[in-house]
């Protein structure tokens, strides 16, 4: 009994913080998405009305919201595979027996992960500047005409994807590397005795061993990429032609620029629903893969 009380005493502070400042607001967020909470309600709560699913219907008829959804899905669909592919490739290189100076390379490739996103987004903006940017200068050296990276609606999102991949790939690389190091050497030994080439070892030994990690990393990375916000905020302000407005950028403007906290909550709930759906699909697909 004494222990029970002690246990609750230990848990109470954390639980209180999480309950009041996370669980409660999450539930309230769902409730808020069913109201017309706006700047008038902010001034006087009597102006608040329950509107049912009106916000949802309204958002689903708002072209900019669809565009934000499309932009976000584009960022996720291209960014996540690129990011994980690069992580895996880098981990395999670092794990290779012939690789030299491993601690240096590991730290160098991981460094972007710990940098501040806003700061590197600022750096990126100057590197990809049309006239004086290093990237266009380097491309010019090999005969490619300058590109308007952040000013062209077709290029702005790819540029942001490049930044995100550059910044994030080191994280999953570390996870892959730890898992690669956990594969016992005898397994490769056996494969070699059976005459497997290096490539076959990769395909039939390494990748199957990494599969559970790949699934987990895929789901976590996807969830992270759905939360695109700081890059467009700093680099493009959602432009050009709204081509880099993400769902969270839309939510931020709706909620904290126009003070439509009701519709902003609706956007957040819809994003959460979309993330759940995509996670579910990924899990289903990976299960099917295991059975096959």
């Amino acid at each position: 009994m004494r222990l029970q009380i002690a246990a609750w005493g230990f848990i109470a502070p954390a639980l209180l913080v999480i309950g009041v400042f996370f669980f409660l607001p999450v539930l309230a967020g769902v409730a808020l998405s069913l109201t017309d909470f706006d700047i008038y309600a902010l001034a006087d709560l009597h102006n608040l009305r329950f509107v049912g699913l009106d916000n949802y219907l309204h958002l689903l008829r708002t072209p900019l919201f669809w565009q934000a959804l499309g932009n976000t899905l584009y960022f996720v669909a291209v960014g996540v595979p690129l990011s994980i592919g690069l992580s895996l490739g880098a981990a395999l290189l670092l794990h290779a027996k012939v690789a030299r100076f491993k601690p240096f390379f590991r730290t160098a490739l991981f460094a972007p992960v710990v940098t501040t996103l806003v700061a590197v987004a600022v750096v990126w903006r100057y590197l990809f500047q049309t006239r004086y940017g290093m990237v266009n200068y380097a491309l010019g050296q090999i005969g490619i005409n300058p590109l308007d990276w952040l000013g062209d609606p077709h290029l702005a999102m790819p540029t942001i994807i490049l930044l995100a991949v550059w910044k994030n790939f080191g994280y999953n690389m570390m996870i892959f590397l730890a898992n690669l190091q956990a594969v016992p050497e005898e397994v490769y030994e056996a494969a070699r005795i059976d005459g497997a080439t290096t490539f076959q070892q990769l395909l039939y030994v390494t990748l199957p061993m990494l599969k559970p990690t790949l699934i987990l990393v895929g789901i976590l990375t996807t969830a992270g990429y759905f939360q695109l916000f700081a890059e467009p905020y700093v680099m493009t302000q959602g432009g050009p032609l709204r081509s880099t407005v993400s769902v969270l950028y839309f939510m931020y403007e709706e909620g904290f620029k126009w003070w439509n906290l009701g519709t902003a909550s609706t956007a957040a709930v819809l994003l959460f629903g979309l993330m759940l759906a995509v996670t579910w699909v990924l899990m289903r697909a990976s299960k099917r893969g295991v059975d096959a």
Partner: protein
Amino acid sequence: MRQSFASVIVNGLLIGLAFVSLFPLLWMLSVSFMSPGEASSLPPPLLPESPTLANYRELFVRGGMLRYLMNSLLLATIVTLVSLLFNAMAGYAFAKLQFAGQQRLFKALIATLIIPGQVAMMPLFLLLKQMGLVNTYGGVIVPAMAGIFGIFLVRQYALSIPDEMLEAARLDGAGEFRIFASIIVPLIAPILASLAIFTFLGCWNDFMWPLIVLTDSRLHTLPVALASLSREHVQDSEMMMAGSVVTVLPVLAIFLALQKYYIRGLLVGSVKG
């Protein structure tokens, strides 16, 4: 022969990747020492003609950078210390103290990790406004005083503490908090170090919430200040690079010094499946 060919390919690719990873950071550092306007010339210079601290001086003397730096330091330090204590206590209790509903409560907490924090943002803002915490340091600190991920990290690590150790301490008549403070904390110190670095870097680098809750520019943290400076000073690449250096350097230094703990935390945290 084949061996050396493979070695050239592998190491060549690694050098290429390291170059891509480090170039933007080194370029940022180099441009931050250039005189105003120097970077906007063709061909774009790689190194400053005559290195100068003028951009840093401008930022600190007139741009209020010291204030933002102090805000970031203060907020990250307080959040780290408080949340470390709360998460350590809760994580330990979930691992080593039996109580009714323990497993179910823990599973429920873990399940909610998939809820993106943004769903909570609008109501949280209203709640903090009611409490008078919007536009104060408290608006950043209070919601971050405990976290599910931190509790999880500590619990996983504390599970390996043998029960006999706690029994022996209890037989000696030690109180539960005493046991926690003098036996448990030293045992879980490595994971606390990992969690401390994670929390500190996370708080330092956080952008969206401080942007929302700290509207008064005197309270801005470095990322928020940098974002707003970069909107005003689009042409001043040298000064913006200096601002980026000030923002990135502290966390990069912490990471380099405490890399071992950081990686450990990352790996424990990644096996939550």
